[in-house]
């Protein structure tokens, strides 16, 4: 949207990932809960789909987007651009960067919790994007206290915070001892059956309700089946890519090609980073995995492997490795 800085963010992030710079949290701030404050780091909770592709030409040269002036036909840099709003009567109102800044939400490092609501009262329609909150600094105790209290009371906290010039309405939910922050949609962004123009709800014929209840019972289970939710497209795409790579068919080395399509931000490195934080501040026994229940991302094991590879093997790393085996199996079964 409006801010220029925001627009440049993804590129800079991609740059850092390539160069192997340390992964930053998306945002750092403080949950304020009455007069209690809990410093936290915000990390993405969703991994990108493994279907993202880059744009190249037939010879494999990296392609990118370039702005041109429609009047002069010449190339433009980002700094040559302004944003205009077209009014209903066709007038173009230019809004300058200074003007955008004058209405931007006040910079704040607080996630202010306004109220605690029963979690089951928040309709799925409202959930937009999940993030994890990791305790920062010495906040572990207050963090655990908030998570435990929300679990005991079955409530989610509703609050708001400002990130990159945007104000977000959020729900904070306790999930297995970790606090998750879900951005929420605003009420005026949600349509209703009336605004869509759906027919009025009649009284459903009882005989048909019974028939459908039976159909539901026939397919009823207690849990999701993760196998049903796997990314079949990504798997097909990857097997095609692997077979081409083996045959050295169409293998190229593009430099800095831009993404072919806009994709949801996020990456697994950040998830691993979150585990590092949680392990240090909360627990030594934490195990993180994706819902597909494949390899759990286990930092202790990774570190042990790294240590074993690099220097003379230490006793400690060997024992850590052995201990890790049990939870790993458990994670796979569930």
């Amino acid at each position, binding site marked *: *949207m409006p801010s220029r800085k925001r627009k440049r963010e993804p590129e800079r992030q991609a740059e850092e990932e390539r160069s192997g710079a340390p992964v930053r949290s998306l945002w750092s701030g403080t949950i304020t809960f*009455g*007069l*209690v*404050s809990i410093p936290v780091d915000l990390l993405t909770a969703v991994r990108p789909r493994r279907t993202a592709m*880059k*744009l*190249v*030409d037939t010879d494999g*040269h990296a392609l990118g*987007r370039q*702005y041109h002036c*429609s009047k002069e036909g010449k190339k433009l840099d980002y700094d040559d651009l*302004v944003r*205009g*709003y077209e*009014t209903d009567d066709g007038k173009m109102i*230019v*809004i300058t960067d200074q003007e*955008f800044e004058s209405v931007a*939400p006040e910079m704040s490092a*607080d996630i202010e919790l306004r*109220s605690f609501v029963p979690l089951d009262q928040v309709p*799925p*329609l409202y959930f937009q994007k*999940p993030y994890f909150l990791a305790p920062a600094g010495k906040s*572990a105790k*207050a963090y655990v206290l908030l998570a435990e209290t929300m679990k005991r009371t079955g*409530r989610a906290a509703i609050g708001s915070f400002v990130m990159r010039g945007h104000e977000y*309405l959020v729900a904070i939910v306790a*999930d297995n*001892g970790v606090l*998750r922050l879900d951005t929420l949609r*605003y*009420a005026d*962004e949600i349509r209703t059956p009336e605004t*869509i123009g759906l027919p009025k709800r009649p009284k*459903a*014929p009882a005989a048909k*309700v*019974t028939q*459908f209840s039976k*159909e*539901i019972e026939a*397919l009823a*289970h*207690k849990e*999701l089946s993760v196998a049903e*939710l*796997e*990314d079949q497209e990504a798997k097909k795409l990857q097997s*095609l890519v692997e077979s*081409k790579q083996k045959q050295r*068919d169409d293998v*190229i*080395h593009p*430099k800095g090609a831009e993404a072919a399509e806009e994709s949801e931000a*996020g990456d697994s490195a950040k998830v691993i980073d979150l585990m590092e934080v949680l392990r240090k501040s909360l627990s030594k*026994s934490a195990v993180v995995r994706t*819902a597909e229940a494949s390899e759990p991302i286990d930092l202790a094991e990774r570190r042990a492997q790294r240590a074993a590879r690099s220097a003379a093997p230490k006793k400690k790393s060997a024992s850590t490795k052995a201990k890790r085996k049990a939870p790993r199996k458990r994670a796979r079964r569930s």
Partner: protein
Amino acid sequence: MAARAIWKGELQLGKHSIGVKFYSAIEDRNVRFHLLHEKDRAPVEQHIVRKDTGEDVPKEEMRKAFAVGPNTAVILQPEELEQLVPPESREIEVLRFVPASAIGDQWFERPYYLGPDGGTDDYFAFGEALSRKEMVGVARWVMRKKRYLGAISAVDGYLIMTTLRRAEQVVSFSGIEPARSATPQANELKLAEQLVKSIEADFDPRQWQNEYRERLYKLIEAKARGEKIKPAPVKKKRAEGSLADSLKASLAAAREKKVA
């Protein structure tokens, strides 16, 4: 104004088939801007160019490449990508029903209202059955050349299909036991629960507005009339002290608020 359906499908349930229309449940309220050249206010055009030479590349010479390493990728030819497109179908396959609590909110991606296509009896009967059972259906279908996973639920008798993220995208935790030093004391838990109770409420989304968007519209309107708006910043204080002290002070403040 009635919304337009974006797709039509057939919900397959045993021997039943329910015709449904998809409507976005989300109304995009973002303020949309045009990018203009600052100097002459002319709209900009986006060209796809070679990064090294800056030369324009025609559409027929563009390819998609899948990255396999930091600087290695495999080009996928148009006919290969075509083969990956799933076959078109109107069928929405319902795989299973699970209790609503079995799907965490981190799975939810984008909601659609389903409306009846043709007769309304089956549509509302299924909605009613789903509500009574307090269950959610897991479904998959192909829409506009893409495969989707979704969760069907009933709200006030109407069916909602929320697309789901893929299993590989969703991260979950297990077995987190806080270190002893981070385990809260019984008195702290009691105070924290009291504090939660002091600001507990029902979920009422209408009380929250996107104030930034409102300010932006006001600014645009003012500029259209040739006026200007001045911002008014606010500052806040934060208390320091032990966790129990902060909890007690917060409770006292919350009580005062309730009385007032």
